[in-house]
């Protein structure tokens, strides 16, 4: 298993497969010629010279690189707008997500922009309320997984040796599991096991889905962080910190993790997209968040197979919500990679 191709964080969860290193958008689509943008060092080093410009802070440099990625800029705006509408559904509709309107399976109309569903609920309201859960799950999973992955990665990379070997074998094991099936089985644990119910909440609850998804989303992060730490730990500044008597914990927390920040932010973003896809797939199959009172984009699509002919709007609106969100988050991740982690982009 040692020779398997590099597994890229972010996409591995959502697509249930490893993704080759250059699945990024080409610079033509996003950031024309971002490689030509001379980054700081020369300017900063030459600040004593005659033609010195004011040195740019790393933050400003990153912003400059991000701004050039047009798709990422547009995506950021779309995501902000979407979040506002999802957080305040009242801006667009007066219907509640579980409120009956009296008309079943009606197509889009001026009363119900997105139509109504099989038991006459307003689809627009459900898409917006469902978005709250879908976005929450995506963010929560990515953040929890980032914490687990960062701890595993930094410990493995910093200590090396047996511990590194052990942790990386565990990572490989998790990567080898068929994700979707593992999630389905794990998701049913609270039904029969009281300890699981107290630990992760009842079956089909948002909390249980977030916990279980997080358990299968940390591996990409662990590998990436470990890789960065391996290259950093021999650097002089770490040596210096050690010579000054800094503890291992301090070196890891204060010197190594902050220097992985770029890679971590990019991976978290891509993981958000992957987690949204995975949650929607699970919920579509009926093993995700239970749909009785809590709509998500995924469980709104549970059971719509029979309606593609008579009421395609049942598919279109939650479906487009998923596609637009995931696409924008992925573009955002791509832009952030250009901005924060330019080394990761392979010169094609």
């Amino acid at each position: 298993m040692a020779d398997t191709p590099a597994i890229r964080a972010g996409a591995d969860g959502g697509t249930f497969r490893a993704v080759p290193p250059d699945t990024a958008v080409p610079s033509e689509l996003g950031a024309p010629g971002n490689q030509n943008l001379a980054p700081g060092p020369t300017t900063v080093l030459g600040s004593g010279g005659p033609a010195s410009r004011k040195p740019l802070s790393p933050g400003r440099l990153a912003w400059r690189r991000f701004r050039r990625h047009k798709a990422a800029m547009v995506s950021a705006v779309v995501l902000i707008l979407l979040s506002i509408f999802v957080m305040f559904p009242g801006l667009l509709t007066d219907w509640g997500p579980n409120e009956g309107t009296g008309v079943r399976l009606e197509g889009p109309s001026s009363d119900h922009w997105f139509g109504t569903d099989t038991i006459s609920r307003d689809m627009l309201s459900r898409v917006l309320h469902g978005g709250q859960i879908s976005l929450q799950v995506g963010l929560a999973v990515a953040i929890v997984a980032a914490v687990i992955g960062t701890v595993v990665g930094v410990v493995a990379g910093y200590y090396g040796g047996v511990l590194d070997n052990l942790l990386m074998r565990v990572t490989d094991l998790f990567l080898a599991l068929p994700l979707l099936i593992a999630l389905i089985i794990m998701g049913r644990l609270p039904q029969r096991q009281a300890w699981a119910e107290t630990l992760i909440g009842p079956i089909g609850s948002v909390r249980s889905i977030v916990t279980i998804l997080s358990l299968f989303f940390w591996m990409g992060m662990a590998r990436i962080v470990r890789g960065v730490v391996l290259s950093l730990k021999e650097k002089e500044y770490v040596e210096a910190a050690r010579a000054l008597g800094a503890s291992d914990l301090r070196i890891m927390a204060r010197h190594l993790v902050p220097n992985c920040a770029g890679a971590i932010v990019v991976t978290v973003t891509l993981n958000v997209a992957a987690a949204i896809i995975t949650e929607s797939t699970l919920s579509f199959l009926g093993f995700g968040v239970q749909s009785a009172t809590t709509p998500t984009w995924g469980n709104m699509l549970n059971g719509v197979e029979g309606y593609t002919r008579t009421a395609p709007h049942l598919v279109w609106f939650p479906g487009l919500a998923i596609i637009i969100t995931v696409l924008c988050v992925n573009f955002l991740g791509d832009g952030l990679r250009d901005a924060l982690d330019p080394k990761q982009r392979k010169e094609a």
Partner: protein
Amino acid sequence: MAVLSYVIRRLGWAVLTMFAASVIVFAAVKATTDPAASLRGPGIRAEDVQRFRDDLGLDKGNVEQYTTWMGNFLTGDLGESLKTRRPVWPDLRTAIWNTVQLGVVAFAITVVFGVLIGTISAVKQYSWFDNAATGASFIGLSIPTFLFGLLLQIVLVLKFQDWFGGTPFYTSRMNSPGESGFGIDRLRHLVLPALTVAVQGIAVYSRYMRASMLEVLNSDYLRTARAKGVSERRVIVRHAMRNALIPLTTFAAIDVGAILAGLVVTEQVFEWPGMARYFLVALQDGDYVRVLPWLMIVVFAVIIFNLIADLLYGVLDPRIRVG
């Protein structure tokens, strides 16, 4: 000699992994299913439940239950369903066969299109085709498989019907009523689900092929071949593609887990009576007698394909052959 010891070591490792995986699967299924669920209800006496538990050996030690089950499984005795009382193997075999049909066709589509698109993208790097393919694969990876299947149904079948008054494709099950077997009717049912399973694979494989092809195209031996006067077509097909395919081959073998996930979702969308539906129904029934062999077969298949990937890598690429 080094090769032989590598193969043996790798085989031993695979057997060990299978054993570990089987224990985990057994424990996970035991922890998540309730065999007596079908007995719950009014008029069921405690003795009946107890006799049922005794028959299945549910009160024996975990280790004994595992060894008994594994012994039966390895000798081909899968028992009969708790719910339907039908023997497990014939139904499971049919389900596997149906899934294999879909899986093989989908995989063939994936490889052919993935390799083709990836190769053209690499040879004509930064052309409009390359950019379009890159954009398309980015979008393809952002659409969940099940959603792609649903959208295909709406766009290709229903709109098609509106526009042309008929459609060559079907959206559910394997055969029309009254039809059976693998003929034109089956193919018309097969196209859309196969495409659904394939689309994310095409997105990933074409990227992979492109990267691997670009690496080869810049190598010295290719320049040598051109300098010798080998035709450009031959250079691309015989010299470049053959080597670029090596990493893709191993990737494909590792990728079974992902293909499986695609199949699970797609069978649900298109009501394809394959393994996924078998599994989901068995799981809903809480029927561990049906769930366990299914999971074991899937997990073993994944491990075996991983093994094949590792061994293939050594066979195809002599540079990797290490002790």
